[in-house]
């Protein structure tokens, strides 16, 4: 169920250039049902900035009602968020949307998780849950540059992890697709989250494979009421359109017209 929770910041630290990891605690955590769901965060009690910011849930720790989010502090809202300290309260609406389907990959099978930039975070909880279930996870993570990369170690502990950086300062020089093409392991499912051009490239590269993609759109309400985040669909579905916030953000490959 979606709730509005005044969550408490447990800790916040910078983990890469402009990238922050924040841990929050509150009863909202108990409502999360799949990796890839997101929360809608009000970063200020004033009207500046006005709108909530959608941020993916990067990992959860149900034992202590804690969740982690990882975000880039770039614009006004996320910069304000990066100033919160442990003990501060944050108004969080969530969990929102439908996440990645863990049950679409059978135990013993291999899944490829492909993330780009701030699309990487939700793949971490996904990988934890897949791995726990006995799925072999291979991670392909793309960043602009080494300074902006994060969580390589965390992912490595769960499975093989390949990094690509646009400027070649870490891992393969180039895009995630440059890693993917030298890479011919069998896999049954792919899961991806990142900027639209990356999703597009991934979907083309794995044409015909079973895959799930997480999309971004600018949002108003975050719960399906305002029609801000609508995407056109392909003819592979009979929905006339989808809303990223409430129908997504994750959709099977081929559904959303990109």
């Amino acid at each position, binding site marked *: *169920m*979606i709730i*509005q929770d005044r969550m408490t910041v447990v800790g916040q630290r910078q983990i890469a250039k402009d990238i922050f990891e924040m841990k929050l605690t509150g009863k909202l955590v108990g409502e999360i049902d799949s990796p890839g769901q997101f929360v809608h965060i*009000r970063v200020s009690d004033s*009207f*500046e*900035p*006005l*709108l*909530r910011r959608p941020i993916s849930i990067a990992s959860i720790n149900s034992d202590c009602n804690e969740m982690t989010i990882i975000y880039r502090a770039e614009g006004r809202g996320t910069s304000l968020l990066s100033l919160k300290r442990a003990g501060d309260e944050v*108004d969080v*609406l969530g969990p929102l949307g439908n996440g990645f389907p863990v049950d679409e990959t059978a135990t013993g099978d291999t899944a490829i998780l492909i993330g780009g930039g701030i699309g990487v975070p939700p793949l971490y909880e996904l990988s934890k849950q897949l791995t726990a279930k006995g799925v072999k996870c291979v991670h392909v993570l793309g960043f602009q540059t080494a300074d902006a990369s994060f969580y390589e170690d965390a992912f490595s502990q769960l499975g093989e992890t390949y990094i690509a950086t646009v400027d070649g300062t870490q891992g393969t020089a180039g895009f995630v697709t440059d890693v993917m093409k030298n890479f011919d392991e069998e896999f049954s499912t792919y899961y991806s989250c990142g900027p639209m051009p990356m999703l597009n490239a991934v979907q083309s590269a794995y044409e015909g494979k079973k895959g799930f993609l997480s999309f971004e*759109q*600018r*949002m*108003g*309400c*975050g*719960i*399906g*009421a*305002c*029609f*801000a*985040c*609508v*995407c*056109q669909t392909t003819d592979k579905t009979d929905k*006339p*359109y989808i809303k990223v916030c*409430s129908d997504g953000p994750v959709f099977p490959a081929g559904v959303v017209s990109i």
Partner: protein
Amino acid sequence: MNRLSIELPGLQLKNPIMPASGCFGFGKEYGNLYDLSQLGAIMIKATTLETRFGNPTPRVAETAAGMLNAIGLQNPGLQGVMDNELPWLEQFDVPIIANVAGTETADYVEVAQKISSAPNVKALELNISCPNVKCGGITFGTDPQQAHDLTAAVKKVSQVPVYVKLSPNVTNIKEIANAVETAGADGITMINTLVGMRLDQKTGRPIIANVTGGLSGPAVKPVAIRMVYEVSQVVNIPIIGMGGVANAEDVIDFLSAGASAVAVGTANFVDPFVCPNIIKELPAKLDALQIDHISELIGRSHP
């Protein structure tokens, strides 16, 4: 005595608080969060004759204490609304105000006629002020003669009272208000959004795919209050005020300016519980102002 009840043409409001059209869909999503029967009324998303997909995305952009939107009247069309949305809303004890949009008089009339026959639709809100569609909409709302004629045509077929939603993008809003009153409008709702724009810093190109969008939120409240103040002094029909309402103080301001009830738009996105929260806070505010009934606030600002 219910200190918050307000009676308007076609509408017995438990309280003067209702979500504004386009900011609440057809109620389902907020209905998952709280009991919609608490609301004074619900203004549903604009309904057009045919299904509309609306504009390309991005459709929203944030601005200082406000936001721009160019949804483009996406909706399932008259039939979809009549078949799926309105019947679902019947489970709640709340009057529905149906926002009617179109591109020409004929489709406004057809939508108005049919939708006004739905059992829970207690009033129409004639949307002659949507800035985000190429034809129709705002053009009716910026010319007094066209506003008059469309109102008269819709009045002729509607089975429920007709409120006309005014655009703030005009030189003289009193003139438009007078025109729709003369044409038989039972009430006025105002304001719709101000046309605005935001550019991307890097590219310099508009962020909203539709180029311009409608500005709403706290930023526009001073303009809305001024217009409600002006119009309420020249018409004899009630006004449902809106534009930047985010808390009980804002409601008091709109009533003081001359509105008889208030709609809440953008603030639902900031705080999904804003409407029930305001309703809860109002009695204490009336106490602080030493006022028995909320209607005593209406038009307090007038000379």
